[in-house]
């Protein structure tokens, strides 16, 4: 069995699966159950300043997007930070951490953008014995209108300033949680780094309206006939999050900055992908909210099996392995030529590949009277759409052509050498290959 132990910023946990700051980590009862179920760590649901607790709506807080068979693919929420008294949370955090010293305990914090507010809360958080803090600069609803959450996360200067205060008044690791509701995520990440952040975590939720009730004309979740945008999360956001993670991982300015990956992690594979893109660990919320804490068992067994199969002995070895292969379009090899191939033994003759290719792509699939579907190599540009719409995994594959063969579509010999757009003759700005 591969070793799943991780050391993130010096914080050890028995596995890389942490529960993200969210409803599942709002109180002692849940967090104890999570640790008993085997989670490696938690980020406690965001604490606010001393004073009257925040108030939540008293109607639906969540809305959902479903795939086939009512599989939950995306969830949005309009819940705010913890609505329980600060002192209660702090006492519980201290108790749980004391009972589970081997698990990571991070405290998420969101207080006003004033130095005194941070100076007040940080010593109290430190006193709990928690392993670190995460700055919630991402929550897109409710708190942002009060100048907190995403309102801070969208202004790099604020991020840098607040991070610096935290590093000044708190001596354990500081993780800055980033909002995706921004054009270029590299900017806030760099600001966090300049402020002294030990790591960034991303993504927080995305502004969203999941559906509109066409009878009442109210967005969902609907509170007395009205709805507000909420934070979107779950499997549907994973591609967006992974792109943002990769941008930070490969940006020279932030390269090497530890990252905690968040966004739709549901299976071991999702986690492995995030880790390969540079994350030192991952945070999970929607999967736990959909399936319960037990879901972590599959994540652990699957990651372990995969690492064994690949010969990786520690999570550390996987971190960032895919980062060198994330590049810009202009550096992709234009001499690489592939063709789709349909395995007739696996084909169930649904014709989805044909409809997709014939109607919307390159008319590169032929259909016979007996519903046999074959690729026309003279037309196939290897766009992959047929693979993507085929209901049978691996029935259609993309086969790379061997250098020296003639591409029947272009009539040109497939070149062995790598050549990209920067040197392509059609590029007015092409530079001569050296």
């Amino acid at each position, binding site marked *: 069995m591969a070793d799943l132990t991780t050391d993130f910023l010096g914080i050890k946990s028995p596995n890389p699966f942490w529960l993200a700051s969210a409803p599942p980590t709002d109180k002692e009862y849940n967090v104890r159950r999570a640790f008993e179920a085997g989670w490696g760590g938690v980020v406690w649901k965001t604490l606010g300043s001393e004073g009257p607790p925040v108030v939540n709506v008293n109607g639906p807080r969540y809305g959902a997007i479903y795939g086939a068979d009512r*599989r939950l693919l995306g969830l949005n929420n309009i819940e705010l930070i913890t609505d329980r008294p600060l002192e209660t949370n702090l006492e519980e955090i201290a108790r749980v951490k004391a009972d589970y010293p081997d698990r990571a305990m991070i405290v998420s914090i969101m207080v006003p953008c004033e130095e005194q507010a941070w100076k007040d809360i940080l010593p109290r958080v430190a006193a709990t014995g928690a392993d670190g803090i995460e700055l919630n600069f991402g929550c897109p609803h409710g708190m942002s209108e009060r100048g907190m959450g995403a309102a801070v996360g969208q202004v790099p200067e604020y991020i840098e300033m607040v991070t610096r205060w935290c590093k000044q008044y708190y001596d354990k690791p500081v993780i800055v949680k980033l909002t995706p509701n921004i054009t270029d995520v590299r900017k806030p990440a760099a600001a966090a780094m300049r402020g002294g952040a030990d790591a960034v975590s991303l993504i927080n939720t995305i502004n969203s309206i999941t559906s509109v009730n066409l009878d009442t004309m109210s967005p969902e979740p609907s509170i007395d006939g009205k709805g507000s945008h909420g934070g979107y999360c779950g499997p549907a956001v994973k591609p967006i999050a992974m792109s943002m993670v990769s941008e930070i991982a490969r940006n020279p300015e932030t390269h090497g900055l530890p990252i905690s990956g968040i966004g739709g992690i549901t299976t*071991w594979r999702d986690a492995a992908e995030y880790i390969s893109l540079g994350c030192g660990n991952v945070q999970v919320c929607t999967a736990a909210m959909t*399936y*319960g804490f037990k879901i972590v068992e599959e994540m652990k*067994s*699957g990651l*372990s099996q995969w690492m064994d199969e690949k010969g990786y002995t520690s999570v550390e070895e996987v971190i960032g392995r895919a980062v060198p292969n994330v590049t810009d379009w202009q550096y992709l090899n234009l001499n690489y030529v592939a063709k789709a191939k349909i395995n007739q033994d696996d084909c169930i003759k649904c014709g989805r590949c044909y409809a997709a290719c014939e109607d919307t792509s390159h008319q590169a699939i032929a259909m016979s009277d007996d519903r046999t579907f074959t690729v026309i190599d003279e037309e196939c540009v290897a766009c992959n759409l047929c693979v993507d719409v085929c209901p049978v995994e691996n029935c259609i594959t993309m086969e790379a052509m061997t250098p020296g063969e003639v591409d029947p579509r272009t009539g040109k010999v497939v070149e062995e050498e790598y050549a990209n757009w920067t040197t392509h003759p059609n590029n007015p700005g092409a530079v001569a290959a050296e």
Partner: protein
Amino acid sequence: MSSPMTPGIATARLAADALAENFDDLHAPFAPHEAAVAADRCYFCHDAPCVTACPTDIDIPLFIRQISTGTSEAAAKTIFDQNILGGMCARVCPTEDLCEQACVRELAEGKPVEIGRLQRHATDTLMAKQRHPYDRASETGKKVAVVGAGPAGLACAHRLAMHGHAVTIYDAESKAGGLNEFGIAAYKSTDDFAAREVDWLLGIGGIEIKTGMRLGDELTMESLTHCFDAVFLGVGLGGVNALRNDGENKEGVRDAVDFIKDLRQASDLATLPVGRDVVVIGGGMTAVDAAVQSKLLGAQNVTIAYRRGRDAMSASTYEQDLAASKGVRLMFNAQPVAIHGNGAVREIELEYTSDNGSGLTGTGETVRLAADQVFKAIGQTLTTDGGLDLEGRKIAITGAGRTSRKGVWAGGDCASGGDDLTVTAVAEGRDAAMDIHATLMGLDG
């Protein structure tokens, strides 16, 4: 070559290719795409009803999720952690009465997640790919005798060996496997699966099998308890109930379990004799297995005669439907009263029955069925009790298989309680092993 119409008992009623087709896997293994689609239907229920319904408590939602995330080996490990004979149970469990009956999608749509076939997919994947997946703990120096190499004995032996004990399994037959090897319809355990599973299970190490050793004959309780630190009895039910009818000794009347055993051990099914008109007496799985296989061997007419109504039949609705689909006639409320024939059976006389609330009684009205072969499948009995206390007609046990004698445990069909299923035997063997382990190591504070 003979045909289904050939009178009397005859071999080779069907051509070799027809026999091969008839005795092929009842349920073909899932292709990868089928497994993915089937696994996707699982809701990952909390405190799942399917797990509650499984005698071995396999974490079904977890293993199905592991299949759906492409880690069937991890899924198999989840299964084997609870049930080391998970491969056989995937083939023979009456899932329609257990996990799949409890599945929430059975409630919602009348179509449960196909748990049995998914379990087979996972266990087949691992068994085809890997060495034995468990490591044996260091030797404890303790010796345990397991009597009976059936599901209960094998599960017990494996768990004991895993904890470092040295296990000797004794079995009366010439090879291990018990009912997995000698009972159970052939189309549920194709390609010599029972024997392959035993070989794979023995990969744990620390288990020695001695065949041809029967308790009461070659083995005595005294010598076992003297030579070993603990004894587990998983001897099953070796005897068969008699019909107590006139003519029971006529040629052509035999125990269904013997017929099934011959069939399972036959290297060429065409050499196996079967009647043109076969009547099976009984209402359990053995009756169905014998009847269906008679039909598949080429018998022209096969009837299961059961003395009670359909509701009381212990074979599941699924098994009844399977029998009917193969052309077996199910006859209810009919009990045998006499077997007729001059030397060999020619007819069986059945009396109709009714149950007016005070027990089953014959109505006095009888019917005769043509029969050149009659199989008795009206229940099996304990043949060796080892001098232990009995409860009913089985070895009395308390807790995890403790018998009336200190240092002796029992489980499976020979022990009291339980429901005579393979999966129950596995659970009892496993649990007894844990109790033996705790006892031997002084852990049972």
